């Protein structure tokens, strides 16, 4: 009794270091998930996950069904892309993606026929408990499932039953610590059963002993819903006792994988390692629902829940949007038609990226679409002042870095030094930029530094490869020269010997003549061929050049 009490006290007080309490502005928390209408045209970039891009397997004019695979993955860290509706492929060309660069990717454009005919090639697997985890894993890959929390890492890679790293705990991430976003919150209320079945599938796949659904205390109705559903399911579900719902105090960035693991298990994931190395895996609630759909219903990932919010959106809400729907169309359904003096954010306000315009499609990573008035953005982004060394950034950093020092190093291009101060451990949560009284865009500097370091690495690899190629070439040229000289020597010696034998000519024989003489020999033709070929351009080119010179003069 006392033991369990002590345990519960420990659990509630445990937290991660750093963090902030931003204003949550979860204005869409009570808005039920609406379903988006069909747009005129779907735009599907061939890469919507972290990893290698896909290759289109349909061509213009093809008719595709809803859920049909339209681009296949190349490489291991990759998942395919599926058609979000039935219709016709109208074109395949480059189109802007929701990426901070504003650069484009080859995209497949599909015009819906309005019938929504489903592709039924993937059969539902109802008895997943009797199915081999490898088969389920392949199914998840085929269904294009990637982490829907925002990182979009291909899910099947994480769900590996590995005897070297046995998984103890599955953590289901229902934290949603980003302000404004409520898509996971609504999903937990409306699709609790699917999420829990998804958990059971994951537990079966990795052999986890227990699962924790982590929910922050600003979503009490989601917590109740999950608990109730667990109770209801417990009759038909023998393993539901191994699933536990855990309430955590609201704190940003608790939804970050490594921070959440630290809070719930007390263990830290070492730098450069993955959670599975300490026997934990973490999945987003949305991913769990997508896993349920893929296994139980045999449906690939073609839609996701998106929170459309921000002070410039007249009717904010949550919406089930098919992947590939242009954002302009999504905003229009919430009453936002013109984008003058409006800033668009892809993701939440802390970690989201600014969009150049609304003509980009919703992709697998789109958890929120925010539209802010320029004035409110300007208030948040004042011009940068010198660092006053107050140390707030270091206090709030959840990974215990020294942001002001790192930003200084990145700004002054001391990238190697920044790397030695663990720049790559930064999770870009934005807590440091949020608290900075001098309005230094710290995270922006870190992103710059990380990009430059990656660039330097690529350049070094390229230089190394070039050096090797250049050395190989020098070796080859030297070797060829030597071989040629050796062959000439052999020919000459033979000729001299012959001449001595014949005692006919005393002078040096002509080289070409010798070669002609030897053609009868079995081994020699190669030599002569080569020498002639190599010699050819040199005697020919000078006269050619000379004559052209004459003509011009």
């Amino acid at each position: 009794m006392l033991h369990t009490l002590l345990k519960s006290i420990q659990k509630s007080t445990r937290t991660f270091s750093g963090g902030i309490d931003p204003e949550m502005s979860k204005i869409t928390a009570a808005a039920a998930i609406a379903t988006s209408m069909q747009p005129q045209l779907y735009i599907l970039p061939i890469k919507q996950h972290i990893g290698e891009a896909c290759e289109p397997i349909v061509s213009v004019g093809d008719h595709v069904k809803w859920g049909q695979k339209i681009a296949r993955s190349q490489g291991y860290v990759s998942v395919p892309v599926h058609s979000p509706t039935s219709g016709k492929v109208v074109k395949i060309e480059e189109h802007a993606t929701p990426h901070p660069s504003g650069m484009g990717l080859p995209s497949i454009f599909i015009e819906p026929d309005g019938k929504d005919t489903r592709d039924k090639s993937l059969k539902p697997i109802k008895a997943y408990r009797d199915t081999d985890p490898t088969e389920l894993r392949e199914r998840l890959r085929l269904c294009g499932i990637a982490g829907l929390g925002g990182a979009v890492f291909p899910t099947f890679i994480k769900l590996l039953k590995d005897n070297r790293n046995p998984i103890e705990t599955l953590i289901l991430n229902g934290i949603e610590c980003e302000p404004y976003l409520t898509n996971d919150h609504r999903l937990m209320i409306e699709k609790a059963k699917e999420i829990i079945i998804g958990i059971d599938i994951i537990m079966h796949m990795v052999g986890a002993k227990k699962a924790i659904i982590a929910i922050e205390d600003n979503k009490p109705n989601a917590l109740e819903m999950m608990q109730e559903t667990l109770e209801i399911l417990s009759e038909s579900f023998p393993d539901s006792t191994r699933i536990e719902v855990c309430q955590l105090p609201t704190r940003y960035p608790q939804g970050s994988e490594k921070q959440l693991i630290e809070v719930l298990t007390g263990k830290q994931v070492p730098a450069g390692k993955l959670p599975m190395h300490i026997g934990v895996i973490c999945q987003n609630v949305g991913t769990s629902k997508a896993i349920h759909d893929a296994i139980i219903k045999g449906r690939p990932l073609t839609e996701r829940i998106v929170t459309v919010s921000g002070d410039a959106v007249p009717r904010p809400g949550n919406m089930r949007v098919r992947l590939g729907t242009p954002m302009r169309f999504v905003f229009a359904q919430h009453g936002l038609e013109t984008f003058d003096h409006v800033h668009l954010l892809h993701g939440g306000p802390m970690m989201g990226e600014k969009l150049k315009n609304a003509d980009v499609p919703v992709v697998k990573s789109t958890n929120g679409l925010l539209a802010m008035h320029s004035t409110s953005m300007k208030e948040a982004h004042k011009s940068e002042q010198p660092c006053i060394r107050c140390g707030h950034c270091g206090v709030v950093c959840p990974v215990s870095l020294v942001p002001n020092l790192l930003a200084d190093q990145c700004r002054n291009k001391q990238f190697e030094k920044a790397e030695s101060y663990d720049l790559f451990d930064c999770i870009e949560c934005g807590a440091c930029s949020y608290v900075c009284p001098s309005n230094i865009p710290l995270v922006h500097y870190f992103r710059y530094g990380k990009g430059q370091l990656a660039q330097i690495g690529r350049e070094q690899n390229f230089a190394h490869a070039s050096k090797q190629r250049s050395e190989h070439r020098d070796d080859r040229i030297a070797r060829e020269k030597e071989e040629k000289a050796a062959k000439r020597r052999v020919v000459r010696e033979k000729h001299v010997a012959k001449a001595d034998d014949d005692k006919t000519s005393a002078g040096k024989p002509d080289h070409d003549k010798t070669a002609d003489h030897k053609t009868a020999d079995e081994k020699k033709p190669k030599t002569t061929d080569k020498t002639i070929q190599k010699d050819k351009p040199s005697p020919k080119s000078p006269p050619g050049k000379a004559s052209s010179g004459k003509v011009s003069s």
Partner: protein
Amino acid sequence: MTYLLTTTAAFGAFTLFFAVILAIAGRVFKIEGNPIADNIESLLPQTQCGQCGFPGCKPYAGAVASGEAEVNQCVPGGERTMLQIADLMGVEPKTVEDEATAPMIAFVREDECIGCTLCIKACPVDAIVGAPKQYHTVITEHCTGCTLCVEPCPVDCIDMLIKPELLEHWSWPLPDTHRAQLAIERKGQHASHTS
């Protein structure tokens, strides 16, 4: 007199003692080659372009190490390489006079190529493939953009194109820079080149 002799003898013996030690040390710590040249070479971009006035990266590295060349002669390496070399050599940084252009790659207009193999011979990193009287082509991922193949081509069928920037290789610009804008412009230029 004896005093003077003992003093001289003592001092001489003392000096000789250290001379012997240093002579032995000189043998033990004998240096072969110029080790700093290898360190410099590892900093160079290995384009083998010869823009420094030396026939390749290795000769230039050797020249810098022996003090025959300045630290600022590597054009493709730009400011970063210059700073690294200056740092290694312990000398004051100098400005790189020639501005490095955007990364380039060679492109053979295959319709016009006569298959003379002259560009293949000129390429320092074996990035052009082809056979006599066959079209030649540039392996883009191996091309260093050194432009050495442009000059030998008798029919001027080699163009230097700006290397297209990949989405995966895009990196954040410094806050408040216009690099992203420039990248988009460059991409537009590239598109007009290739079309």
